[in-house]
């Protein structure tokens, strides 16, 4: 049985629900994950909220995911360049693998990630769907 602390997930709500990222206050480069050091050498970053719009860099189809994701399988995962510059890996939804293309425009939506069993917490987060 897949189990995980609902509290650990809760600490990540900012990244999961809202696509909060970090922007170098010197050169303006954006990152999805918190960095200590920018490629330009700067050490200071501002928090920014990404628009949720981006393009697919590459993608794949997952037939057999972790147990908690199995009810959604098969599903697609993509590396996405956000319009603001940061690159993230995320699950795609509402799409067929056959219809995906590199460079395809996608946008963020809030979806269910998984449930911690029948009695546990429901985890939500950002997935991406082809722009329509």
């Amino acid at each position: 049985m897949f189990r995980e602390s609902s509290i650990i997930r809760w600490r990540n709500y900012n990244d999961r629900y809202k696509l909060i990222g970090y922007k170098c206050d010197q050169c303006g480069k954006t990152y999805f994950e918190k960095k200590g050091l920018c490629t330009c050498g700067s050490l200071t970053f501002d928090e920014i909220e990404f628009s949720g719009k981006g393009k697919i860099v590459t993608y794949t189809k997952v037939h057999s995911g972790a147990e908690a994701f199995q009810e959604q399988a098969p599903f697609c995962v993509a590396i996405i360049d956000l319009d603001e510059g940061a690159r993230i890996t995320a699950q795609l939804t509402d799409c067929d693998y056959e219809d995906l293309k590199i460079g395809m425009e996608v946008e963020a939506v809030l979806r269910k990630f998984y449930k911690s069993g029948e009695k546990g917490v429901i985890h939500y987060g950002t997935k991406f769907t082809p722009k329509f």
Partner: protein
Amino acid sequence: MAGIIGWGAYIPKYRITAETIAKVNNDSAPAIKSGLGLTEKSVPGKDEDTVTISTNAARNALLRADINRKEIGAVYIGSESHPYAVKPSSSIVAEALDIGNQYMAVDTEFACKAGSATIQINAGLVDSKMINYGLSIGSDTSQAEPGNALEYSAAAGGAAFIIGKNEEAIATLDYTCSFTSDTPDFWRRAMQPYPSHAGRFTGEPAYMKHVIGATELILEKSKMKISDFKYVVFHMPNGKFPLIVAKKFGVTNEQIEPGLIVKKIGNTYSGSSLLGLSCVLDIAKPGDKILMTSYGSGSGSDSFIFTCTKKIADAQKKARTTDDYVNRKKYLEYPEYAKHMATIH
């Protein structure tokens, strides 16, 4: 009084036709389609529920509202399908919308009028100056027992409205009132997965009595006539009931048709009349008057009169329309549909 500052719709991408369901249930599809006045319904994705539908609708409402989201002082979500029995949908949606922590919140339940009731609550809070803005949402992933007549209509979708001061409104709320009584037409007991209903009793003494009652009351209070309205929206449990009420009041096709979204996506329960309102706000012009009456089993109706302001034209362009979602669709066969419904409550 208060008014609507922004509105937004969300409808899942998936559909199932009445034909597909009728084949499995050994029903006559033509009889179902003419009896219920609908041809297909929306179905949630496997990873969608009331929380995700509400969030995506509310994001559209925020795109249309030119406000600081941290000034939203109340979040109320009406639904029959809150994902948790205990733990609010409203706090999850508010967190995803990043409105901070200084807001009142509660999930409401009154069958299909749980969402419209939150517009009244927020209007009261705005008028009493307890809040600057309130978020009202009606959304559902409706449940229906396989094989039951409800299976043809029980759909998924929702609409969100930001309520604020009259002066900033895209549509002012001019009047609202309700008509309520204890009526056992449709219910779902605690821990039961599917609702039960009293068959034909759901018509005359339930839906008709309350929708007509609230509509008569608001016309009387406002001293207005049906012909004063550009658009009229009644709750849509199917494509037939609202037309029966329309006929009684002398509502024309031109007034009722633009909001009659049930024909295209089915009955989205708490989202139903609110998605109808969203459809007409998408196309309304400044000065247009809108009459909306919701219905919730158990039973009650909330009636509203709105007048669109100059601000509506600009707001219409800022987010996807209800029709954009209606027209985005992928049809499912019955086994896929069953899978979609099994993972969602």
